[in-house]
């Protein structure tokens, strides 16, 4: 088997004096769907943001597809990457945010075509065709020229997923993608993610949707207070948790 898509070794992250990640070790294989669960403040989202260098790690090693995130190693020393190289690597990683973060001054279609044309240098027509196709796949074929403000939360999040997919990423990060949605809108977003997982996309999903983790996840990771408490198959971690903290958390969310 080839090397893992993501490899984290003793990853530490501090905000001032607050240590948010206290040594994370994880591996995510290609095509794997990993669900990160845990109480808020446990460091799940921070870890996710470290993967595309939105946050810089303080120590440890973190690599995506065999390359270090944000750094270059030469002569046994780490050198921080130039901004341009950081951006180039980010372009290969899709990210979906809790609050969607669609660009409000652009239509759904423009949101999806922007980065492919400006970052990848795709032609307008090429980007347009692909965006139309992606938006149709998430059930928004009739919303191409609608501005985000006129879309429901669930529709906005599906545009955000299409926007990330338009860059043809090798990895998708989801940061609590359904937490800001009304309950009746969650289903459509989870459906879109389920299809993506089915197509073999490597995904890391920070979520509180235990049902989704059980059904779609290949691995479930339970984090608490900046450390990984428990890792395993969903049936094991969710059905038969070994740690007291996991048990306490699951009792609370179920």
């Amino acid at each position: 088997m080839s090397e893992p898509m993501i490899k984290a070794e003793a990853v530490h992250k501090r905000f001032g004096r607050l240590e948010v990640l206290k040594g994370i070790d994880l591996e995510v294989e290609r095509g794997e769907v990993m669900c990160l669960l845990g109480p808020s403040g446990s460091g799940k989202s921070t870890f996710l943001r470290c993967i595309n260098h939105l946050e810089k790690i303080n120590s440890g090693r973190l690599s995506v597809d065999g390359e270090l995130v944000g750094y270059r190693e030469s002569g046994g020393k780490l050198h921080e990457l130039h901004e341009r190289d950081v951006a180039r690597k980010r372009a290969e990683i899709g990210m979906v945010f809790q609050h969607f973060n669609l660009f409000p001054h652009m239509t759904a279609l423009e949101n999806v075509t922007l980065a492919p044309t400006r970052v990848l240098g795709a032609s307008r027509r090429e980007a347009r065709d692909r965006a139309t196709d992606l938006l149709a796949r998430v059930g928004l074929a009739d919303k191409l020229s609608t501005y985000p403000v006129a879309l429901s939360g669930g529709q906005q999040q599906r545009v955000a997923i299409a926007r990330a997919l338009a860059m043809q990423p090798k990895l998708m990060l989801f940061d609590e993608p359904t937490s800001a949605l009304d309950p009746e809108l969650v289903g459509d977003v989870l459906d879109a993610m389920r299809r993506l997982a089915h197509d073999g996309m490597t995904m890391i999903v920070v979520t509180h949707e235990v049902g989704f983790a059980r059904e779609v996840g290949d691995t479930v990771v339970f984090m608490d207070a900046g450390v990984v408490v428990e890792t395993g198959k969903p049936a094991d971690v969710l059905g038969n948790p070994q740690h007291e903290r996991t048990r306490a958390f699951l009792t609370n969310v179920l």
Partner: protein
Amino acid sequence: MIAASIIRAIVTNKNFQWHVVGTYLFDSRITHGVLVTIELTVLSMLIGVLLGVILAIMRRSPNPVVSGASWLYIYFFRGTPLLVQILFWYSIAALFKTIDLGIPFGPALVHLNSNTVITPLVAALLGLGLNEGAYMAEIVRAGLLSVDEGQSEAAASLGMGRLQVLRLIVLPQAMRVIIPPTGNETISMLKNTSLVSVIAYTELLYSVQQIYSVSFQTIPLLIVASIWYLAMTSVLYVGQFFIERRFGRGFSRAEQMTMRARWLGMGRGGAGGGVG
């Protein structure tokens, strides 16, 4: 009642000499002054906006030297009177007889005589434009701060560089916040151009002064100037409406308001909109 009697007093008072106002309203010296005032306003605002954007971006720089330089500039130009700055630029030849452009402490590449370079126009533009830059910097900075951090993060996560994020995502959204005070600044600028009359630059006020210093028809000529200033600000109001509408796209669920609806106060609160 009071308003009616004030209007009556203004119309019937012979000292206003309304017929003189009529004679000079389209006098070629006056219309030339109007054109110069427009030219000064446009050029000074261009300098001001451009400087403002640069200074605002510098203020956000993580480099303390860069952000400090911007802070010092704003501190200095906001802290001294515009009139003093205009006089200072006009008299700069007294400080520096020549202006050398080149490598610092090295050979000069361009050698200029201050008295020929700093014409009244240049002094006026330096005075008005550099001062405006300081005010615009704060307006632009407020606009940049108004854009949610998530917008830059989303753009960065798509692989855009810092400048692309600023140009394509942050600035267009900041415009919505930047434009109303900039309209205000433009109207102020239009009137502040009258300050350069002190360095004998023939904009509208100085043209008027030149006429009444000979004819002694001070009041009617000041009315002529006021009518033109009012006419020009009215045009700016209309322009601002359309620019605001252009950059408000995507921020309101309601149909875009027509100008008439807004004047009649029929539009629902436009700005805002729950965008995450």
